[in-house]
């Protein structure tokens, strides 16, 4: 251990540590930069998604008036309602992002707080966010038809299948990419918490995270089934009115 004291002394006598490595103007610049952390990236993604959803609400409302009493009008209102829910959900997730003051807490509290939040909101927020990609595809397709034919054509079964598959693909790819990116970073936070609480009784914390994970899987499955149900209903409805 004496040997180790030698290194501690060397550490404390190291002049290079006390050298000024940032200047006052640099500190001033850093104070106004954007954080590169997970939380800030996630916050920006939520803001971007809310803005995109609002733009889609506007585009679909315009489309509903344009289509005026067309068979698709009711569907555009369904999409607007879905987007309305999406904006509300993202706003709630945004408002509950852990405050900045958490970095002044102990490392355990800081990590637990961040993980609690991400386990509750992250997956759901990314699933709701992916809805924008699917609806950008559907809205874009409707506008394309309107500009080309001045009305929505009578969809054949295969046209509807392409539309539904395109929307599903846009949804799936977007949800998968966003969830994978976030999961990688969340998993790393979990690993740090496990390293920190190793040897400490952390059953409560871990069981809380496991419960949140199970709840998320349940909600995702229910949402998935509801989405597929809605698409089947859309398909049957469209085929029936041809």
């Amino acid at each position: 251990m004496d040997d180790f004291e030698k290194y501690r002394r060397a550490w404390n006598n190291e002049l290079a540590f006390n050298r000024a490595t940032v200047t006052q103007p640099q500190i001033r610049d850093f104070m106004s930069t954007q954080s590169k952390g997970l939380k800030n990236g996630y916050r920006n993604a939520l803001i971007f998604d809310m803005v995109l959803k609002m733009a889609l609400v506007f585009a679909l409302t315009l489309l509903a008036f344009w289509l005026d009493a067309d068979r698709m009008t009711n569907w555009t209102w369904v999409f607007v309602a879905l987007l309305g829910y999406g904006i509300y959900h993202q706003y709630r997730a945004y408002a509950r992002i852990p405050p900045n003051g958490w970095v002044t807490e102990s490392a355990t509290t800081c990590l637990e707080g961040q993980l609690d939040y991400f386990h509750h909101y992250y997956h759901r927020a990314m699933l709701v966010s992916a809805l924008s990609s699917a609806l950008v595809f559907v809205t874009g397709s409707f506008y394309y038809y309107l500009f080309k034919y001045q009305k929505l054509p009578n969809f054949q079964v295969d046209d509807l299948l392409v539309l539904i598959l395109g929307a599903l693909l846009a949804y799936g790819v977007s949800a998968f990419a966003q969830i994978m990116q976030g999961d990688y970073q969340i998993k790393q936070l979990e690993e740090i918490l496990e390293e920190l609480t190793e040897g400490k009784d952390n059953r409560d914390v871990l069981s809380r995270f496991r419960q949140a994970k199970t709840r998320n899987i349940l909600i995702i499955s229910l949402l998935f089934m509801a989405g597929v149900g809605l698409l089947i209903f859309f398909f049957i409805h469209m085929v029936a009115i041809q």
Partner: protein
Amino acid sequence: MKERKRYEKEFIERMMRHQGILNKVCFVYSGSGVETDDLKQEIILQLWRSYPDFQGKSAFSTWMYRVALNTALTYRKKRKLNDFHWESEQVIDPRKFMDYSEDVQTLYRAIAQLNKVEKAIILLWLDEKPYQEIGETMGLSEKNVSVKLVRIKAKLANWIKEYQKI
């Protein structure tokens, strides 16, 4: 406006006075100059954003260590497609040490092998913080800190011995 300027000035002066903490945390948590600069920037930003929460109940250096370590622990670069290194693997750029004494270089090489939590604990210990303060910063009991420190020191001693053989 005047108050804000005074507040900013006070913060910058404190940063200048306590650059040692910033340098040590970045030294331990990053492998290259670019990483050090990125982390330094992130820590200063988090310190500035949390500065309104600093009420002077503890020493500024204690508070600064806490924010800096929490930032370093949770700070993640986005994974790049061409990044083949494991997250836990700290790639060491030899240019980083050129100005440091031989003992500090040896110690750094050993510390680089520790996980993020162990690095935080040994950093606080090296800076002669009492067990109680290390515990409060990390959210651990004093007993837990002492157990972890014994294990960390044993690991470091082993690695240092290995380097000395080379």
